[in-house]
């Protein structure tokens, strides 16, 4: 029997390690990558000709980044690598497997695959606050991409605001790159971080260093403030300042011209949704994610999941899951197993999971913010839908579920398809109705996952 076609979606740490394992086993996996060079977001590579030293770009993670980039280069001849290609649709095919609708440099292509490894990564979780739609406000992920891919900062005087372990990390990277970081404002209090510190410090991972450095004031000189409230970006045409209330209740105003904002990460799980995977609500991170077994299986028998796309774990976890998931897939194909390798990965992943639990405890998703979002604040920026419009739809038009809210208000109906506003809208709806957020459900994924031109590119 011919080797099955395995398609891997995403060429970040998870997808690349999965490709490596499958290629080692003699398969020739298809690796579909939205990026133009393999590496994903955290190890994003500059375009050819704009390279800079890895130590400057990736800091603590330079070694891992280089290793992964070298792996991508070494794998290229042994896999079917499709850079610059988005998988915009996925459908089941008879009697089994999937058709992937791809749009790449050559135009539309429909690829048949027997099995899927979805390593689709994550993006920032946003929450609205006054001024968040002003030019000059970026997500932390975008701020990192600007730095890594383009060698640029998002402003001359940069303020960072939000929650999550990316906050101190990006502050550190920006400071190291020579940017003036004028404020690092964490809307969650210091207490959960202090409580979680011993568990975090037990894990000598890069992110732990970042957190630990924050806690110990190793970012000394950076104005890190936990427990801030009432954050607002000020400006008329663009960012001019950031104002906030500190934990002691005093108002502050800091002049700046760039703001990076993020409130944690969310899985990019639309492909899993279109592939028919079952989702489950994670009460810790308050998000719906495709179900994933410890070995990497999705609920669909021909779909495997790895990396942040099925639960936020960070780059190191993504690498381990990519490798583990590919081993599971090979075992399911009846290939010989390496029990020792599987056991080692399972041990490492279990340790990472304990660290992750501590990290989630240190950086809870600050959903409490939705209480303070004013009615005139824009939540869905694609469609210009305000928090008040969402609340009115809930009260006056019986919108008690996310897809109904979308139909009635247009929130989540624009070009991002709710990827940016979906979580915030769900929290606003649930808070307004006084129900647990899981009861309002989630926006269903719909093709195309990202916009595609009406006319095929020539």
């Amino acid at each position, binding site marked *: 029997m011919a080797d099955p076609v395995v398609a891997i979606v995403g060429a970040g740490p998870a997808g690349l390690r999965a490709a490596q394992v499958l290629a080692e086993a003699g398969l020739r996996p298809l690796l579909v990558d939205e990026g133009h060079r393999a590496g994903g977001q955290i190890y994003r590579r500059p375009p050819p000709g704009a390279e800079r030293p890895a130590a400057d770009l990736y800091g603590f993670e330079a070694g891992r980044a280089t290793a992964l980039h070298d792996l991508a280069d070494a794998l290229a001849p042994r896999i079917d690598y499709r850079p610059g290609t988005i998988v915009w649709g996925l459908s089941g095919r008879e009697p089994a497997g999937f058709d992937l609708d791809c749009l790449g440099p050559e135009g539309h292509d429909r690829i048949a695959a027997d099995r899927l490894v979805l390593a689709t990564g994550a993006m920032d979780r946003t929450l609205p606050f006054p001024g968040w739609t002003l030019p000059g406000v970026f997500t932390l992920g975008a701020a990192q991409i600007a730095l890594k891919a383009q060698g640029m900062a998002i402003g001359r005087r940069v303020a960072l605001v939000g929650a999550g372990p990316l906050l101190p990390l990006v502050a550190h990277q920006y400071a190291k790159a020579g940017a003036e970081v004028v404020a690092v404002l964490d809307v969650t209090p210091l207490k959960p971080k202090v409580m979680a510190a011993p568990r975090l410090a037990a894990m000598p991972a890069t992110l732990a260093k970042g957190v630990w450095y924050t806690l110990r004031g190793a970012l000394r000189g950076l104005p890190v403030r936990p427990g801030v409230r009432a954050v607002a970006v000020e400006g008329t045409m663009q960012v001019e300042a950031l104002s906030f209330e500190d934990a002691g209740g005093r108002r502050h105003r800091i002049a700046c011209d760039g703001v990076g904002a993020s409130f944690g990460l969310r899985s990019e799980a639309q492909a899993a949704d279109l592939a028919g995977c079952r989702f489950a609500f994670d009460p810790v991170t308050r998000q719906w994610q495709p179900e994933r077994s410890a070995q990497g299986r999705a609920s669909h028998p021909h779909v495997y999941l790895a990396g942040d796309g099925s639960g936020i774990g960070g780059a190191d976890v993504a690498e381990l899951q990519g490798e583990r998931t590919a081993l599971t897939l090979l075992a399911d194909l009846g290939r010989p197993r390496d029990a020792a390798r599987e056991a080692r990965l399972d041990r490492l992943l279990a340790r990472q999971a304990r660290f992750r639990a501590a990290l989630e405890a240190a950086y809870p998703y600050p959903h409490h913010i939705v209480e303070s979002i004013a009615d005139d604040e824009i939540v869905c920026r694609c469609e210009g839908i305000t928090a008040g419009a969402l609340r009115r739809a809930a009260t006056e038009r*019986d919108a008690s579920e996310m897809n109904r809210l979308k139909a009635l208000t247009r929130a989540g109906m624009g070009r991002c398809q709710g990827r940016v506003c979906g979580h915030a809208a769900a929290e606003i709806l649930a808070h307004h109705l006084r129900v647990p957020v899981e009861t309002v459900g989630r926006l269903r994924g719909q093709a195309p996952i990202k916009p595609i031109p009406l006319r095929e590119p020539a």
Partner: protein
Amino acid sequence: MEHLTVDVAIIGGGTAACAAAVALREAGLTVALLEKRLCGAGASGVNFGGVRQQGRDFAELPLSQRARVLWDGLNAKLGEDVGFEATGHIKLARSESDMAVLEAYARDAAGHGLDLQLLGPNALRAEMPWLGPAVVGASLSPTDGQANPRVVGPAFARLARRLGAEVREHAPVRHAIHDGSGFTVEAEGVTVKSRSLVNAAGAYGGAVAGWFGETAPVAPLSPNMVVTEPSGPLVTRSIGVVGGDVYVRQTRRGNVVLGGGRGTADIADGLARPVSAVSLGAMGKTLTLIPDLAHAQVIRSWSGLDGEMPDHIPVIGPSGTTPGLVHAFGFSGHGFQLGPAVGEILAELVTQGRSASPLQPFRIERFAAWRGPYRSEGEIEH
């Protein structure tokens, strides 16, 4: 298990069903409506949004004309803006033989009281310079237009609630019987006893009819819809073509909605999905009609589940076997415009046993001896 006793039970929560609930409450009857999922989320909510008399089977025209009058007052009746705009509906010819079809239809439609304007190539370019060279002529129905299908059904459902109807969502109906004196409808979580029963179950309408010994060959029909992100105003009319393989309109906000061909549906779980190859095909056909959309970005595609009859017109009327049972299903992809009128007609059938509109062509008995194909593969006319 909850038990309700009402004058009228309604199976289905589409626009026609919810409009019937409204009309029945206005007539003073008690009503319980049972919807499998959410009201207006099925065929009523996922269609193109065409509010069109042009191109219909002449049997439907009296209903369509009655509905058209209602559309003018819908915002006021429902208490919200459902996005109705009389942009006109234009049906395009892409060949001389297409044009001959339009000419013949316009001539016959005039006899049914529908005035259409035939446009040759010059008049067409003068009025709509954005049409591509593939179009050779057209037929314009100036009084037709478009609306937002996602909000109409839910708005009727809320009005029904305000008027006192029991509207139960997430209440799929398992079975219904008539025991000689009245109906018992068993749904998830609730049992309804009623004197009359309205079957407005869409793709499942044939199954409901079957519980009462009636044959109605309904096949699932899933429109394949696509929408672009908003762009500047360009497409001034709601567009159809002879043959019905593509249809296009631009919303007030600027999104271009287009459809054509069919998606797929799983009748068991009721979930329908667009088919990407069909979406790409409709996108290509749209570009030949409107080349200026070349750079528009498609942001979403969807489908839904409607019921289709072999002769492409619905079943509307009293049951042939069971007194008190009334049917309205199988709208075959073009029920959206009819919905408000069908609601009134259903209420007339329940309260008076007859309707002011001619329903002879829609009677369920036409399928009593049906042995033909169950599924039609025809184009969906819009």
